[in-house]
């Protein structure tokens, strides 16, 4: 099996006067307002990034919109995305747009870094978990059929190539970030062949990284341990569905969906979004959404484009705003509005950072 030894995705070169072009997909719900805040903040900080906005209408049955978005991402190499809503009452011919994007661009690794923030009050402290989730196969293969009326079969596919690839990504990332332990989450006692193959691939890759401890845990025990003692976990690698559950549990443990950014990496492309992929329909256009997750995702984007100075500047400003407790949004128990938080971040950038546009 040929595993790519090159780093998973190189950033696209900044050809046009040193400015990068990034695809921006606003999405549904709170997506458009957060996308606007990101653009506003980048303009204010003079970040050399131009956004190419591609609107995707998730209510339309035709897939032209999402195909345009995919083509734009192929062109630019990098994207920042809001979540696209999927109406689950529509027939199976209407596929999830988010899933389509991930599988077409082969964004095989979803990385979510959950860290306890000092200013946010949660039941558990000192959490620092990196979750690496296989993003393209597993239960999300969308292969279903009804052989007999009333009996539906859904296929979960696990392949050796993809399992090896994600395990390798996990161990490489652990090594780069100086992490010491990787835990594989599975249910191989029940799904002996499927999750058994995944576990075997992880063990195979682990043998090539002797400095990193490898262990495995069954998914139900994992969730139980996460709510009682989450500090024991370091890096976790798992197939698609368990990744969904575990990442949402961890996001809830550190303070909610408004705080954690997520990144989807492929061989050639990278797409950044909020970690828990919520549309936030109920709070759309009320100016109460928490912009932290989307803004931290944009910092990850800047890191990927190797614009580390800008990334660190914005990240420092965001974290200083979050630790001032009175400027929390409603999901963290405060009374601040989205625009107030963004203004405060901009003020923090201005006071500590280099020359910026005037407010």
């Amino acid at each position, binding site marked *: 099996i040929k595993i790519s030894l090159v780093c998973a995705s190189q950033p696209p070169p900044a050809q046009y006067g040193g400015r990068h072009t990034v695809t921006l997909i606003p999405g549904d719900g709170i997506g458009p307002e957060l996308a606007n805040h990101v653009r506003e903040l980048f303009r204010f900080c003079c970040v050399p990034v131009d956004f190419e906005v591609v609107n995707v209408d998730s209510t339309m049955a035709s897939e032209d919109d999402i195909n345009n978005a995919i083509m734009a991402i192929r062109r630019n190499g990098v994207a920042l995305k809001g979540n696209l809503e999927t109406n*689950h009452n529509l027939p199976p011919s209407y596929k999830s747009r988010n899933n389509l994007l991930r599988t077409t661009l082969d964004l095989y690794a979803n990385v979510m870094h959950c860290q306890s923030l000092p200013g946010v009050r949660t*039941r558990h402290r000192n959490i620092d978990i990196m979750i690496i989730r296989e993003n393209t196969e597993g239960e999300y293969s969308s292969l279903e059929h009804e052989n007999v009326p009333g009996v539906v079969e*859904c*296929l979960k*596919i696990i392949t*050796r190539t993809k399992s090896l690839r994600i395990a390798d990504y996990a161990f490489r990332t652990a090594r780069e970030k100086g992490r010491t332990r990787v835990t594989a989450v599975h249910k191989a006692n029940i799904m002996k062949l499927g999750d058994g*193959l995944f576990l075997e691939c992880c063990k195979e890759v682990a043998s090539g990284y002797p400095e990193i401890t490898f262990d495995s845990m069954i998914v139900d025990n994992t969730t139980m341990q996460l709510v*009682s003692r989450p500090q024991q976990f370091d890096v976790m690698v798992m197939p698609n569905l368990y990744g969904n559950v575990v990442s949402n549990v961890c996001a*809830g443990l550190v303070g909610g969906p408004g705080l954690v950014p997520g990144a989807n990496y492929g061989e050639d492309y990278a797409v950044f979004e909020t970690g828990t992929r919520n549309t936030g329909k109920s709070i759309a256009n009320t100016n109460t959404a928490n912009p932290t997750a989307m803004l931290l995702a944009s910092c990850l984007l800047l890191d990927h484009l190797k614009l580390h100075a800008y990334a660190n500047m914005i990240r420092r400003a965001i974290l200083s705003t979050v630790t001032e407790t009175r400027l929390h949004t409603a999901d963290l128990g405060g009374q601040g509005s989205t625009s107030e938080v963004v203004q405060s971040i901009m003020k923090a950038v201005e006071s500590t950072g280099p020359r910026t546009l005037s407010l």
Partner: protein
Amino acid sequence: MRRRLELSQSAADTPAVVLVLVLLVNDPLPPLKDTSLSSHLKRLQLLVGEGCLLVAHPGRRISVSPPHHTAAPRRSELPSRPAAAPSTAETSRAPEPGPVRFSRRRRRRRRRRMKRRRRSRRRRREPACCLQLTLGGAVRRPALSSASFSRGMQTVTLIPGDGIGPEISTAVMKIFEAAKAPIRWEERNVTAIKGPGGRWMIPPDAKESMDRSKIGLKGPLKTPIAAGHPSMNLLLRKTFDLYANVRPCVSIEGYKTPYTDVNLVTIRENTEGEYSGIEHVIVDGVVQSIKLITENASRRIAEYAFEYARNNQRSSVTAVHKANIMRMSDGLFLRKCREVAENYKDVKFTEMYLDTVCLNMVQDPTQFDVLVMPNLYGDILSDLCAGLIGGLGVTPSGNIGANGVAIFESVHGTAPDIAGLDLANPTALLLSAVMMLRHMGLHDYGNKIQTACFDTIRDKKVLTKDLGGNSKCSEFTADICRRVQDLD
């Protein structure tokens, strides 16, 4: 002289409710002034006495027949049964060789009988007065056999299990004895044996005991790796068709966890879904695992969930799914839940994605009440909820099967390292036994034992090691027994 007491429910369509009580008495009774349920039952106790046959069918009349040496109840009062004796026309004829052909009259009678049965099952009862007598849980209880009802004692099959199983089972039996609960234990061992045809099965005496008593209490069972047979839990599930796994998760005052006000129930489909065990290697390096969702199983679990919610005064049922990705399978599950929800307008029905449930559960578990879901999500979520209240050592669990079978169990492991050292914590098995008592309708005993158990834990004087103390299992048990006797 016949006295008819009408006890019926307020809602029209709960199957597990008995409606009309007919008493055969010799003396005329003064008219009843106090119409409370307990007074009715007290009168029943006075009149019925020991050794009487109480035949109860959900939705039908309870008839009480005096002890067998006196006159049998009249045929019109008993629930309708299929015609016992064949007509004389058939018996007078010599038996014919070859396939059996019934006469036209007999076929017509059979058709009418089937139609009557179908109609009676579908019929909705009109409310007469507002008293309600529920025969426990959400399951239609079959007629109580006279053997188990004699002396008011009910038989329960006890499976002690392995490791710490025997000690915690003894502890539970002691506590029940102190509470004077009318339970007669029948201990059985389940070890897989190979039956005829090479199929693994549970020992026939265990099966026969369960079939008779219908209620079981099980300790932890170990599955030796590479034993060649499937896990014992799986065997039991298949043998008795245990389709619903119910886990009520209530925060225990006195056992501190970061989550203090959890009060929810997870109901998980136990037979199909991702755990169907159907896997294939398509080509080398590609494995396919099949998740099976069927209409019948989804409907059955949804019906159980709503019945449970109604019978336990729960206000809402939430279906947990991932239909945005698994459109057909979880879509079918959701559709069945919606259909069943139509018949239970008094219970609120909501749907939520699995990831949203996980996210909200760890931030604010109070927003959930009853959760119903397919197998895999149920496995993960029920263990998540168990973690919220303190782990598997304090979580009760019940498995409900078809034909009225119910097996209540403790879900923790066998803990072979502390087996036999009197260090085990019997709380999980005890709370499961309390669930069992409630299922059987013995709410008083259940509440008594649960209060005693929670008081002991709240007091923090005699706690086992896993609860944070350093007492022995026997001391913990003795304290609970003492409190139970004090509560009397």
